[in-house]
């Protein structure tokens, strides 16, 4: 089978043609436009992927097509958006409303927040029909149930009456898709529709979108930053940067012979699924030893059956100084619970957590405090993990001064650290909002390192970042580790990231460790079926994006 889609669209009618689209800030006329001459077209049955890093203008392009640009902030300054024979930019608000949901529709990234939490999902789908004055009563409900069936939701009558919070992430995204496709639009815009989902769910959702696309001949504009996903689904790829399209090509051409420098850089930054080369064994005593760790959440009790949820069960591992251990798994696998227990941010139910020679699992708060400096954490979202009202310097020296370091000394060290993480020492006088996501994550890492810990727990520390930034932050962690001999416990759902940084990997499912070994053993020759299914679901797994060629897998995996 071909690696990339090779559909031919010569002579097929355009569904949408964006011509030389410019969008600017309404308040600052004459400034550099945020969207600068974007042109692209999508034909019937074609999947066009719009890729690029955050801020490149991908989402703006799609909002412009939908006529949903934030009014009063952004406006189209020139260009045309042709849907068939009509220029959408000349349509009135009322006419655009009639087109939305019927001829163009859209699905969004986060299916939890994109659905109204207080309305039953069936009624939310029904609302599409009602808003366009189509079908009512029994007939309408029949159509809703029919589309729910088409997106392969189980037990549709029950789900029809459910609220969004009662469904899983995958089911919610199926509801979104049902909502978008019930009126059989000619164009479907999918804005990062699988980014918030687990890999195995992502695989199912991608398959569903292409199945329905084939059935109805829908043109799909698929926005994503994930090159793996692009390689699986794209007919045509448009690469965006700074509001411009820098390269457009059929998928197979783009992946095999990328022409533009930026495309090449973007592809090079995609972490390979191939694990790092093994480093020598460490003979020193373990920095962190976790044995039989368990966490049970209990609920109910009064007039209600007690129920217990085992978030983590019998987790055992050890982490050597100067090495990185990855915990991988999907949402709900218990990996974050383990990280929080190790940090004693939640109380473990049982087991031992030996930090150096001391078991901190059940240490009373007073004595635990002395140990806190030895183990530090870096969180996922750098936009929320730094206090917005405090200067970077204040955030950085707070920890050391709490442990008795003189403020001047801590500040001097903070200056050094800023340089080590690749920022200038002036950054200490600034506030978090003055930095980009990648810079903030560097600051968060500097904050953790300032405590001179033996262990750093990185909880999805690069998941919120663009691939190129992700790459830099991973390198930074690696450098720091080599310089300072810190042991890193790296929590991630992304096997590619794990392959880049981890020496050892444990795979968790339903709160239990299902596989444990060197990165090489686990990722190249997985033994447990769950690990295999995870690797299998990783999009574009057989392709080495940086080198533009197939990965030669050992026979055991492929």
């Amino acid at each position, binding site marked *: 089978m071909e690696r990339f889609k090779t559909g031919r669209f010569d002579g097929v009618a355009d569904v949408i043609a964006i011509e030389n689209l410019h969008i600017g800030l309404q308040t600052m006329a004459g400034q550099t436009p945020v969207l600068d001459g974007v042109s692209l077209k999508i034909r019937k049955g074609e999947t066009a992927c719009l890729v690029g890093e955050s801020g490149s203008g991908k989402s703006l392009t799609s909002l412009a097509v939908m006529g949903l640009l934030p009014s009063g902030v952004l406006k189209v300054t020139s260009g045309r958006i042709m849907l068939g024979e009509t220029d959408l930019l000349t349509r009135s608000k009322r006419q655009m409303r009639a087109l939305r949901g019927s001829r163009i529709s859209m699905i969004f990234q986060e299916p939890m927040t994109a659905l109204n939490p207080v309305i039953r999902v069936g009624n939310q789908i029904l609302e599409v029909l009602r808003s366009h004055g189509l079908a009512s009563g029994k007939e309408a409900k029949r159509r809703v149930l029919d589309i729910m069936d088409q997106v392969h939701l189980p037990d549709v009558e029950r789900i029809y009456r459910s*609220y969004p919070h009662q469904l899983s992430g995958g089911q919610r995204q199926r509801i979104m898709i049902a909502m978008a496709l019930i009126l059989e639009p000619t164009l479907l815009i999918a804005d990062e529709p699988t980014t918030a989902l687990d890999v195995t769910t992502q695989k199912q959702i991608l398959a569903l979108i292409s199945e329905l696309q084939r059935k109805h001949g829908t043109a799909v504009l698929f926005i994503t930053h994930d090159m793996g996903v692009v390689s699986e689904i794209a007919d045509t790829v448009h690469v965006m940067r700074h509001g411009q399209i820098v390269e457009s090509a059929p998928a197979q051409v783009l992946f095999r012979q990328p022409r533009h420098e930026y495309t090449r850089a973007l592809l090079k930054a995609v972490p390979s699924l191939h694990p790092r080369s093994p480093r020598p064994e460490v003979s020193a005593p373990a920095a962190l030893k976790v044995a039989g760790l368990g966490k049970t959440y209990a609920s109910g009790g009064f007039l209600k059956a007690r129920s217990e949820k085992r978030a983590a069960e019998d987790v055992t591992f050890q982490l050597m100084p100067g090495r990185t251990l990855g915990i991988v798994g999907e949402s709900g696998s218990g990996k974050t619970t383990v990280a929080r227990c190790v940090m004693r941010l939640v109380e473990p139910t049982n087991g031992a957590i030996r930090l150096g020679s001391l078991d901190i699992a059940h240490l009373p708060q007073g004595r635990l405090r002395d140990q806190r400096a030895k183990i530090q954490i870096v969180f996922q979202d750098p936009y929320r993990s730094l206090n917005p009202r405090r200067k970077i310097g204040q955030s950085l020296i707070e920890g050391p001064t709490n442990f008795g370091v003189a403020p001047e000394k801590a500040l001097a060290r903070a200056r050094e650290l800023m340089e080590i993480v690749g920022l200038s020492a002036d950054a200490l006088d600034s506030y978090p909002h003055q930095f980009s996501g990648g810079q903030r994550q560097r600051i968060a890492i500097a904050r953790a390192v300032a405590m001179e810990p033996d262990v750093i727990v990185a909880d999805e520390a690069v998941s919120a970042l663009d691939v190129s930034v992700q790459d830099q932050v991973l390198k930074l962690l690696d450098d720091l580790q080599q310089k300072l001999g810190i042991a890193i416990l790296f929590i991630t759902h992304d096997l590619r990231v794990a392959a880049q940084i981890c020496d050892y990997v444990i795979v968790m499912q339903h709160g239990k460790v299902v596989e444990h070994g060197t990165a090489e053993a686990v990722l190249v020759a997985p033994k447990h079926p769950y690990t295999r299914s995870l690797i299998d679901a990783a999009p574009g797994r057989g392709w080495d994006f940086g080198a533009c060629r197939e990965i030669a897998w050992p026979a055991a995996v492929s």
Partner: protein
Amino acid sequence: MLAYIIKRTLAVIPVMAIVALIVFLILRLTPGDPAAIIAGDSATPEQIASMREAMGLNEPIYLQFLHWIGQLLQGDLGTSLLSGTSVNALIASRIWPTLYIALLTIVMSVLIAVPLGTIAAWRHGRLSDHIVMIISVAGFSVPAFVVGYIFIKIFAADLRWLPVQGYKDPALGFGEFLRHAILPALTLTTAYVALTARMTRASLLNVLGEDYIRTAHAKGVSEPRVLLQHGLRNAAVPILTVVGTGFAMLLSGVVVVESVFNIPGIGRLTIDAVMARDYPVIQGMILLTSGIYVLVNLAIDLAYTLFDPRIRY
């Protein structure tokens, strides 16, 4: 759900027990001898002593408490020192004007404030938003007695549409009741409209930034439906909290407005009791007020579940 209602209702008991204990202690520990007050300035020490004996004040304090609680559990709040009538009867005669005016105020506030707040949020940053915000700042900053007298001047003294003051029970005719109650209710409404409109605007603005509002637009849902069906319903919980606590505050007596309009409600009852150191009445009023707060809070908590299916305890 049923388990939650039962649990939540049972939780009222310890709260009220603690309130009762505090009420009892405050009055026993404050300086001043109730017996001396009742006996009056010209009483001899012997008269005061016999009064103490009669009132049971010579018993150990825990016996006094048990005795008092025992009465309380039978629904007996004691006898007013001032008038000699039972506190139950006093409250019963005064609660209705306060209750009716509070209800009228809340209904009018919600009917005015929620649409105003919704318009402000919808037209965020534009002229109509600014006007609503100015109205609500003004409504909040002018004291109730000023608003009350202005209304009396305009509608009663100058236009002579409405009576200057007084109160008529609805049982004697709803129209008459309304003619007397509308000005005091409107006076109270100004402050509550300000509060509720602000809360509606803030809560709705928050909701309008949510992803599911964008989804609704992407489905082609009409603007009013996005605002009301998707917006307001999600914004309801904070609004409900403000309306609920506002109602509890109104019920616990609105002294100024009752004075301005000469309404025989429990606000004035409380003031009179405090002035006269009528301890049993004060005790009764504190218990009643706390009880109202506890019950209204219970009602608010239960009402949340009607608006938001995620709140299931």
